[in-house]
Each structure stands twice: as C-alpha cells, then as structure tokens.
C-alpha cells in the first residue's frame, strides 16, 4: 500500500514539475494556426494545419487535394502520346522533365531506343528545365526569409531559359515535345550559340545569389540548424533530389539510374552536403544549377548528328508488360510505373512524383519547430503543388 501511494505521489510531483518546466516563463495554451491554402510558401494551394504550444509546433498536418486532377485515372483513357500532355502539368516549372520518364518507360516496353541525337537534345532540355525550376527556388527561398530582391532576379533570368525552351519546343511551360522514339523536332539553327550565352547569364545569377543571399549573415542565421533530416529518416520517408543529397546521401539518378539520357557522356559532379538542415538543401540546389550549366555546355559542344526520331509505328500500341522508369527530375525522383496490356492506352499508370514523398516528411520535421521556422523549412523542402496532388 505504501508503495502505491508513494508511486502516486511521485507521479503527482513529476506532473507538477513538468508543468512547471513548460510554464516557466508564462502561461501558454494550445492554438491552431492555419497556414494556407494561399500562403506564398505553399507554391499553390497547400494547407498546413499547425497545432501550436506558444511558439512551438506540436503537430503539423498538411492537407492536400485542392489541386488533385486525377491524372492516374485520366491516363487510362488517353493514348500513350496523349499522356505527355497530362504529365506536363505535374511539375509545371520543369515540365519537359516530367515527360522524359514516361516516354522512357513506354520506350522500354516497346523496345525502342531514341537515336543518340534525340537523347542528347532530351538531356539538354531536361537540364534546362532543371535550371528553370530550381532558380525559382533560389529566389523564393530568399522571399520566405524576408529578402524580396532575389526572386526578381530569379524571374528575370528564368525568362532567358524559358525563351530557349520555347525556341525549341514552341511552349514556354508545357512543351509536350518528347515523343516515343525521339523528339518532335530538331533544334533550330543558331540555338546552341544562344543557349551558351544564356548559360553565362545563369552563372552570373548564381554568383549574384552567392553574394546577395548565401553569404548574407541574416540568411545564414535563419535556415542553419533548422529542419534537420538525418539520412536514414529521409530515406525511409522517400525523400529525393536535393533534399536527400542535402542530408549527405550521395545518390543521383542522373549518374546512377542508367536510363537513356546522355548524362554519362559528360563530366560532372554530384553535390552533397552533410548537415541535412534547411541551409544545406538550399546550398545543394545552388550548386546543382551551376552543375547543370556545365552539363548543358558540354552537351551543346558535342551533339551527335543524325535523325531525332527512331522508326516507330504511326499508331502506337505498346506491347503488354510492366515497366518502371525513374529519373532525377528538378524536384527529385520522378517515376512512372506503366502497366500495358498491348492496347492504345495504358492500363494503369502509377505516377511517383517527387514532391509527394518530399512533403510527406513535414509532420515529422515540423514537430518541435518554431513558428517562424515552419515557413523556412517548407520552403527549403521545395515542392510544387501539382507535383504533390497530380
């Protein structure tokens, strides 16, 4: 009996003590903060319901679905060439990169390979999409932390990249240019020289970002040590792209994937950062833009001659089978699991988009963070709503 009462007494004291610890400064009470759906950090309409205790986040629940368009269902009633029009709109900042893994999956099932010239131009456009996508992040990261100028620089220089994409494909945002067996068209005359000039501008932009943002003391103080994701946690949650490389995992499908792109033909480096915090994710992306410039420059110098389209039937029927192809898209690993029954349309397309997995870690990573850091962590994870909701 004495034992039990002692235990009760101890429990009571412990509860008092823990209460005292929490309320050592002033009384706090739980509060629910609704971040979004229209918050600028959400790149669309993501709503995060944040339960707070004072300034500290107890629990964060992202609510998606405001932009769910049901592409997996729609793909079941579209022919294979028509699906690229849909998937263009998944990650709308790097649209061309969305088409590539789907086309590669269809090509694997059809046992068709694009001619070398098509593969090289594909890779160039793929990397241009990466630049167009990621420089917006670099500018946006500044905005989320209170620096308004970088985003104007980003929008300014992104135009030059979009102009180059438009010059080839005819579309600024939704190129719909990739075809099973190659590309719709060849690059126009004089395009390689212009693109080399644009790469110079992008490099200047990266230098400006280094001067203006990266080296800025205030910017350094905000994201460093915030939102730390250990490598094994990131892997178990399916994080990819710069998010996982920012946690020190040396894994890049451009180097390790072995799919039909020309990345293995040129000399480049996979950047990683050991810290795993918000700053390291920003830093890795900045390096990747520079690296992408290098990749494009080398590819432009050696585009092989020849056709841009392999011989494929006019009406495309994909033989029965299943293929999963993933590539290292601007936002991370994007893959398509294509199930074909030998018909004109896919039987099932599972779209594995990068942002969906990247953002699924938010409840874990935001727990225990402070309110001002929520935005900076969300911004550093970098997601596009179309890529979450599909």
């Amino acid at each position, binding site marked *: 009996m004495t034992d039990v009462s002692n235990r009760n007494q101890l429990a009571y004291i412990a509860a008092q003590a823990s209460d005292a610890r929490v309320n050592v400064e002033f009384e706090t009470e739980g509060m629910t903060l609704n971040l979004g759906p229209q918050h600028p950090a959400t790149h669309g309409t993501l709503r995060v319901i944040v339960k707070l205790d004072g300034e500290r986040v107890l629990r964060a629940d992202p609510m998606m679905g405001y932009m769910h368009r049901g592409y997996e269902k729609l793909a079941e009633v579209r022919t294979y060439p028509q699906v690229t029009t849909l998937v263009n709109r998944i990650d709308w900042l790097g649209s061309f990169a969305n088409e590539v893994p789907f086309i590669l999956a269809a090509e694997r099932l059809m046992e068709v390979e694009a001619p070398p010239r098509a593969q090289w131009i594909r890779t160039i456009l793929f990397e241009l999409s990466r630049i167009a996508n990621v420089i917006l992040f670099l500018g946006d990261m500044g905005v989320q932390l209170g620096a308004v100028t970088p985003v104007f620089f980003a929008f300014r220089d992104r135009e030059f990249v979009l102009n180059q994409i438009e010059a080839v494909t005819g579309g600024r945002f939704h190129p719909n240019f990739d075809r099973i067996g190659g590309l719709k068209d060849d690059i126009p005359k004089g395009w390689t020289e212009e693109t080399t000039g644009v790469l110079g501008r992008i490099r200047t932009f990266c230098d400006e970002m280094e001067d203006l943002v990266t080296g800025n003391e205030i910017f350094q103080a905000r994201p460093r040590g915030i939102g730390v994701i250990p490598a094994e946690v990131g892997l178990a949650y399916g994080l990819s792209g710069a998010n996982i490389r920012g946690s020190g995992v040396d894994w890049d499908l451009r180097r390790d994937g072995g799919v039909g792109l020309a990345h293995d033909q040129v000399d480049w480096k996979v950047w990683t950062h050991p810290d795993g915090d918000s700053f390291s994710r920003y830093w890795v992306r900045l390096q990747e833009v520079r690296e992408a410039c290098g990749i494009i420059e080398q590819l432009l110098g050696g585009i092989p001659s020849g056709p841009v389209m392999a011989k494929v039937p006019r009406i495309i029927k994909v033989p029965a089978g299943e293929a999963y192809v*993933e590539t290292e898209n601007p936002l991370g690993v994007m893959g398509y*699991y294509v199930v074909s029954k030998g*018909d004109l349309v896919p039987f*099932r397309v599972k779209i594995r988009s990068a942002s969906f997995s990247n953002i699924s870690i938010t409840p874990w990573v935001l727990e225990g963070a402070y309110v001002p850091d929520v935005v900076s962590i969300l911004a550093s994870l970098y997601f596009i709503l179309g890529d979450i909701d599909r």
Partner: protein
Amino acid sequence: MSSPDTNLDEVSEGHEPVADPARDAIVASLADQLGDGLVASEVLAGTDVWVRVTTDSWLATATVLRDTCGMAYFNFLSAIDWMPSPFGRDMDAQVDLVGADESQVDPEPMTWGVTGGATRFQMIARVHDPVCHIGVTVKADLDADDPRVDSWMPVYPGADWHEREAWEMFGITIVGHPNLVNLYLPSQFEGNPLRKDYPLLARRVKPWPGIVDVEAMPGDGDGDAADEGGEGS
C-alpha cells in the same frame, strides 16, 4: 515484337541470358526468409526485379528488404485493379463508341502482368537500395471482396500517405494504419475513383472530342467547361 527495328530485338535477346547476381541474390534472400510467402519472382537482368508475396507476408517482406537486402529507400506504394473496364472500349481506348455495347456483352478475361496474379486487386510497392542502385517491385494479391493488407508504416514511415491514397482510391483497408482518412478527396466523398468500375464521370458526360474528328458548330457545345475534354473530374 512490334518493334520495327530488328537490330534492337537481337540486342535485347542477347541480354536475356546474362546473369544478374545482385538481383538474383535479393530474390534468394527473400525466398530464404519468407519461405512459402514468396509466390513468384521475375528478374529482368540488368534492369528490374519483381516479386509477388502472399498478403500475410506483406509486412515481413518489407522488413526483410530493409534489414537484409539494404533497401533503405521507400519509393512508392499503390495498388492495381486488374479488372478490365466494364465500360467498354470508350473508356479504355480511343476507338469508336459504336463498339461499346459489344464489349459489354462479352467482357474481357482478367489478365495479370509480370509475376502473375490471382485476384482483382494487387498491392504494389517499390523500394530502392541507394548504395547498389537496385530497386525491387513487390506485389501481393488481395482478397477481391474485402481487400485488406498490413501497413508498411512500422518499417517505412513514408508509406503513410501512400497507404492513405491507396485506401481512398482503391478502397483497400490498411490494417494498423493510425490515421486512415482521405488524403485528396473530400471527406464525404463516396466511391473509390481508381477502381476500374468507377466511371470517369467527365467522359460519361461528354465523349472524348478526339474520337470523332468533327468540330462542333457554334452553339452546339455544352459550354466552356466541356471544352477541355473532360479534364476536371
């Protein structure tokens, strides 16, 4: 088969006998640890590997893959409804609506893809080894009337949202999932949209405009919303 380039066929045939020790080892260790739990497997040398396990060993498979095979990376999890669409060719293929009635009378038999299948619903998940760069696709057949399967969350916490998506889109009960609520759909939504017997309502309302290549006359159209060809479902 349908490839017009005979050269490519020769090349791919030349690749097939090549052994793939790394992927074979994964299948071997799964067979070793799961025993009868492993139903079928297929290795496409140098490219991919698929395994099919029983529903009961679904969670055990994840544990073996993570702990023994080094598959630390969770890639995705979803499901496949293998039933042919009951809505005829107009839902499945871009051919004339005329054929729709015939195919409704004579439904296609159910066929399964790689590693086969036995029931209508199949769970599909993929994990990846970020060191050896090998991915494994895992499948499991689910009961057609009451599809239920263990949650992968104890092994891969990232399976959380993927399982919620599978639950709302296919109606698959995820046993042991702590928060099985709708992810994308409104909470009062009824039905499982990615099931094959769930109609694509936009297409029901207005047939695919590309089927008949005739432009509608002004005034014939159903309004602006229909011009997108059934985009907003």
